[in-house]
Structure formats: structure tokens, C-alpha cells
């Protein structure tokens, strides 16, 4: 039975192919000139170059964080290329002008770019290495005043909006990787939902790393004006290289009065092989500012990929009665390491937050939940509910929970529940005795374990996540 389980977990990564396409790759290394080069390639305004250079100055003085429960050799930041873009015509009039090789790549990944074939009801911005190559349904969204485009376009076409919000939720000095991203970010998605508009379709960004020696530093900014609402999805894959690639993204969300942002991620970066060789270092800063009264920010993540994940999608609950939510499934196998969780910072009155975290560790992997619930003196009547469950698969994996709770007033309520369980030989035998093989049994146990999170995902994503998990854990119990 152990062998069956082992096989199940050890299924190969499907998205590990490399697209052969001519790319414009910057020489390795980082200095002020690299940043000027990126900025000039993107024809950026002066204020943005200044933002980048200031961030770079800050970064130089910062230390890589040592507190996460992950271990890896020191990264040589001079050995990375900070810009890589497929060579193509500078300005695309329509999808038909996109390099067919790129179209094929994304079709293979299940993200068709032609609108006539596109995922029904989902607008997609597609990022390939450092640049956005296509955005679907842009015109249709513009009819209701929604701006959905790549960050590079937003900088040129809507500089006032970008300048107003960029770096306001995550200042460049926030942390080492946020500072690095602020200095060298290349592209990402920008999304603006005007007052009172409910976005008629899900918006999504698909990130693909293709070049071996480049890092991906994307920057996403979503602003929902008063009474606006949007559901945003993010997917990621990368080829299987034997070296590690750095992915250091920054995502900022701003919700004004009565606005609602729901951000869902299925992260399936290449995780390295069964011996822990290769894979993405996923060092990401994501934070939402629930700025207005009654605003709501909800993060849902399914983290299955990356050699190392270091990620804490957080909510700053500034507006009175605002709501923050974090629903997470993190799965690690082989030698993967994940240190992930959230921060809920309660500042406004009667703010509420919910944390549901499910960690699954298989193989020799290590999975940590790290979460902060902070209730400021001003946050009277605040409430938090946290639930952190870990599941161990096999005998050599580790699960850890690091909850931090800081309450600075006396009429708030904080609840924390935690559990650890194990898929045991006895459970599998029970299923087998009822005719169910190990594969179906593991899938049913895992889906049962994750159901509180999966039901938060949009339909197509939930189906994908379920399949991805069964696929990833097939054969890992023993």
C-alpha cells in the first residue's frame, strides 16, 4: 500500500515544458543602471523611475528575512536577470498578432487567448516572464468603466490612478522582497473598478515563467471604488529547470466604502523534482487594505507548487465594520517547504476576520502556518475566528503552526482552533475494505479536509484545485 501511495504522490509535473521563443533578456546583475534600463524600456514617467530607485536604495540597506521556517542556500542577486521578454511587435492591435508560439504555449496550459475560444466569462491578462502578452475582454470591460490591463499599460494610460495607489498598501520599505520588487518589477495586472460597478465577469491573470535565469517580479494593483465589487483569479506555472528561479511578486488591493474584492490563487509553480532539485522560490507579499466602511477583502489560495513558499496574504481592516477573510490550502510534497499564513490587522471598529488554513504535508516536506491577528486599541468590538488544521501524509513530513495574537483592547473576541491529523494506513484499509482504492481514498480524504476552503473558490477553479490536489498527492500515503 505504501508503494501505491508513493506512486500517487510522485506524478510528474504537467506544465514543465519550455517554450522556444526568441527573448530579449537583460544581462544578469542588479544596479541602478539595470533599473534605469527597465524603466526606459517601458518608457516610464520620471516619478516611477524615482520610486524604483528609492526602493533600490532601501533594499540595499535591508537584510533577507531569516525568521521563516525554510532553508535554502543564499541567493546571489547578481546572478539573476531582471528582465526577459519575448520578442514581438511592440503594440498589438489584436490577439491575431500574438506570436503563434505563445498562443500555443498558453493553449497547452489551458488558457486559450483567442476570445472566441477563451474561458467563458473570464477575462485574462497573460504574463510571460517579465511582460504582459495579452489581455482578453478588455473592450467589453471598458464599456462599464472597468480598467483591466497590464501594469505597463496602466502606467502609460492611467498614470494618475497608478501613482495614487502604488505602494500605498505595501510601501517599498515593507520588507526585503517587497523592496526588491518595487525596484525591478516588470509587469503585472492593473484593475480598477469604478464606483458602484459590480464586475460582470471574473478577472484573471495567468503568470508563466519561461526563461531559466530570469526572475519574475510582477506587480498587481486592484482598486475597487465605493460600492464596487470584483472577483479576481490568479494562476501560475513554470518549466521544470534544475536551477531555482526567484519569483518575488507584490499584490496590493484597495477597497473603498462598501467595496468587495475577492482574490483567488491557484499556485502551481514548478516545485522541483522528487529529490528537491530545482523549483521556484516563491517569495511574495500580498496585502489588501479594507479602507472604507463595510468593505471586504477575501483571499483564497491553493498553494501546491514552488520549492519554497513564503507568503502571507494579509488584510488591514481600517474602515469600520470592514471584513477580512483568508482561506488557504497549502500542499507540500517531496522536499518542498512552505511558510505561509496571513496577517489580520484590525484598526476600525467592529471589524471582523476569518482565517481558515489547511496544510497538507507529504514526502519529506515541511509545511508551516504563520499568522498574526492584531487588534488595535481603536478596534473596539472586533472579532476574529481562526482555524488551522494540518494533515500529515506519511512518516517523514512536518507540520508546524505559529500563531501570533495581539489584542490591545478589552472588548474584542479572538478564537483560535487547531488540529493535526494523519492519513493513516487504517483509514486506507477501511476504504479498501469497502472496495475503494488508495487513490480514490486519498482524494476523498483530502477533499473532505479542504472543503471549507474549496467552497470559497469560483466554480472552475474549485474543479481545477480538486484535480490538482488529487494529482499531486496520489500515492503519497504510507
Amino acid at each position, binding site marked *: 500500500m505504501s508503494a501505491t501511495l508513493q506512486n500517487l504522490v510522485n506524478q510528474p509535473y504537467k506544465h514543465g515544458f519550455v517554450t522556444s521563443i526568441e527573448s530579449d533578456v537583460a544581462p544578469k546583475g542588479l544596479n541602478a543602471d539595470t533599473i534605469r534600463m527597465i524603466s526606459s524600456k517601458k518608457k516610464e514617467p520620471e516619478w516611477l523611475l524615482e520610486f524604483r530607485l528609492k526602493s533600490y536604495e532601501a533594499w540595499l540597506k535591508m537584510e533577507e528575512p531569516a525568521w521563516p521556517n525554510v532553508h535554502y542556500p543564499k541567493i546571489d542577486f547578481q546572478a539573476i536577470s531582471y528582465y526577459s521578454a519575448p520578442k514581438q511587435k511592440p503594440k498589438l492591435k489584436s490577439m491575431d498578432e500574438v506570436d503563434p508560439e505563445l498562443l500555443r504555449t498558453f493553449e497547452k496550459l489551458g488558457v486559450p487567448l483567442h476570445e472566441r475560444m477563451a474561458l467563458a466569462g473570464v477575462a485574462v491578462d497573460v504574463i510571460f516572464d517579465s511582460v504582459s502578452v495579452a489581455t482578453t475582454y478588455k473592450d467589453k470591460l471598458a464599456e462599464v468603466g472597468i480598467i483591466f490591463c497590464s501594469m505597463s499599460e496602466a502606467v502609460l494610460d492611467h498614470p494618475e490612478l497608478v501613482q495614487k495607489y502604488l505602494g500605498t498598501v505595501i510601501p517599498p520599505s515593507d520588507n526585503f522582497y517587497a523592496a526588491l520588487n518595487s525596484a525591478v518589477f516588470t509587469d503585472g495586472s492593473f484593475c480598477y473598478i469604478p464606483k458602484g460597478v459590480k464586475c460582470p465577469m471574473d478577472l484573471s491573470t495567468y503568470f508563466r515563467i519561461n526563461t531559466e535565469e530570469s526572475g519574475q517580479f510582477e506587480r498587481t494593483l486592484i482598486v475597487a471604488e465605493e460600492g464596487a465589487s470584483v472577483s479576481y483569479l490568479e494562476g501560475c506555472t513554470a518549466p521544470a529547470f534544475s536551477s531555482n528561479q526567484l519569483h518575488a511578486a507584490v499584490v496590493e488591493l484597495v477597497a473603498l466604502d462598501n467595496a468587495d474584492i475577492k482574490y483567488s490563487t491557484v499556485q502551481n509553480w514548478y516545485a522541483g523534482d522528487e529529490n528537491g532539485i530545482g523549483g521556484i522560490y516563491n517569495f511574495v507579499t500580498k496585502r489588501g487594505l479594507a479602507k472604507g466602511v463595510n468593505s471586504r477583502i477575501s483571499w483564497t489560495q491553493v498553494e501546491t507548487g514552488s520549492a519554497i513558499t513564503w507568503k502571507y496574504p494579509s488584510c488591514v481592516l481600517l474602515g469600520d465594520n470592514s471584513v477580512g477573510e483568508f482561506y488557504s490550502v497549502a500542499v507540500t510534497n517531496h522536499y518542498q517547504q512552505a511558510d505561509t499564513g496571513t496577517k489580520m490587522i484590525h484598526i476600525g471598529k467592529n471589524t471582523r476576520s476569518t482565517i481558515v488554513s489547511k496544510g497538507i504535508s507529504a514526502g519529506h516536506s515541511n509545511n508551516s502556518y504563520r499568522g498574526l491577528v492584531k487588534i488595535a486599541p481603536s478596534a473596539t468590538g472586533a472579532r476574529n475566528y481562526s482555524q488551522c488544521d494540518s494533515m500529515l501524509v506519511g512518516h517523514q513530513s512536518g507540520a508546524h503552526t505559529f500563531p501570533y495574537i495581539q489584542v490591545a483592547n478589552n472588548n474584542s473576541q479572538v478564537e483560535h482552533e487547531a488540529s493535526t491529523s494523519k492519513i493513516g494506513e487504517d483509514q486506507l484499509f477501511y476504504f479498501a475494505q469497502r472496495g475503494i482504492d488508495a487513490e480514490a481514498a486519498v482524494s476523498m*480524504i483530502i477533499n473532505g479536509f479542504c472543503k471549507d476552503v474549496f467552497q470559497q473558490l469560483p466554480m472552475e477553479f474549485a474543479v481545477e484545485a480538486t484535480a490538482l490536489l488529487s494529482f499531486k498527492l496520489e500515492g503519497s500515503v504510507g
Partner: protein
Amino acid sequence: MIYQDSRLLLEVRGLCATVNGTEILKGLDLTVRSGEVHAIMGPNGSGKSTFSKILAGHSAYEVTGGTVMFEGQNLFDLAPEERARAGVFLAFQYPIEIPGVGNSQFLRLTYNTVQTHRGKEELDPLEFDDFVREKMKLLEMSPDFLERSVNEGFSGGEKKRNEILQMAMLDPRLAILDETDSGLDIDALRIVANGVNQLANKDNAIVMVTHYQRLLNYIVPDYVHVMEAGRIIKTGGKELAFELETRGYDWVGVEHKAATRAAV
């Protein structure tokens, strides 16, 4: 019940098995024909539960000798799930809890998996719901069973009923009831036994592994076997169980040793 035209279901010959290197079964013989109800009794540690787990294919036990044929097929050629699909059912002494997995979902997957392998139609969730609710009446189970996680937080009696419910659904050829009476109060025992009795027919067979005679008042066996030190040392009719109840197990062992010595 013993039928004239019964078929051979299970034939165990000289079965030997170990767990972690310790020999538990030492040459066990047993023949079960369709329609029959067998009781295997014996003191703690005699190997009764080990025998039932080996038939179901638990990986902790290593078969070191002997053969087991099930409906003419070598049982050890089949993986545990294949045995279940072929009609071997084990009602667990300690049913396993599976948090997070809904009982109705689990029951439906089980039912449909087994049906598919028997070349029969699967039931969709609505059809299954009607089907399972009907079966639940047999065991006087309340419908909220379906909403709960598999065996999680179930009382001892509820767990055992859930086992017999699965037996009722899966319609096995050979049902092995491992200490099904343990942990049951008298009402629950009556309900569970009544369920089992309704399921027994001339095409299937039941092997009850039990410590006490109590269960046999409700499910009347055709044969009673006494197990000691990994072997069946005495076989009789239902009256043997009464004798065991009054006299205990020791005399059977003494008698057996005497008989063995005489044979030598």
C-alpha cells in the same frame, strides 16, 4: 441455515500468519458454504480478529503458509479492494473515523464502486439517497447519520450500525462480523442482530467472531468453532456455545490436548 444445494464459498487450509514476526495463526482450517452462519469463539489472543483481518487483506499481517480459496479463487491473489468488490465484507471491531468526509458521500462512493465492478448501474445522488434511507430503516438509524463525517463522534452502537448498514448496501457473499456485539447495549444489539438476520440468505454466508455467547441468542449459528492458539480446536452446533458460556474455554483445550496425545 444449512441448505442441501449450497455452494462452497470459503475454504481455509492450514493457514499460518505472523504479525511483526510473532506467529498468530498456526494451521487454521475452516470451510464455509453458502447459506451458513458460523461463529468463531475463543479466549482473547487466540487469533480470532487476526483471522478476520487477514481475510480482508490487512497489510500488517504476513501470511506464512496455507491457502484460502474464495469462490474457487485464490483470495491472496486479490488486493484488499478487489476482495471487497468480489464480495468479502468485514464489519470492523473498531470502525475507523474519517473526519471531513461526509458519511453519505462515502457510502455512495463505496456503493457505486462495488456496483460498477459487478457490472451494475451506479446511482446518482438523489437515487442513492432514497436507496440508503430505505436501508437505514432496517437498522432504525436517524437520517442525520448521512450528514455527519464517517464514524466521527459516533457512539459505539452507532458505529456498529453504520457497519451493518454498509453490509446491507453492498450485499456481500461472505460477511465477517468482528466482535460486532462489543460495546453494544441490549437494544442496539437487538437492532443490529435483527438487521443481520434479515440480510442472511441462501446465497451468502456469515462468519461471526465473538467472545461471548450473548450475540448468538440473536443470530443463531449453524456451526460454532472454538479457536485457541491460532487454530480451530473444536467445532459443534449452536449448543456448543451454551456449553462454553457455562463451562468457559479451558476444558476445550484440555480435551483437545488429550485427543491429540491419544492420536499420537
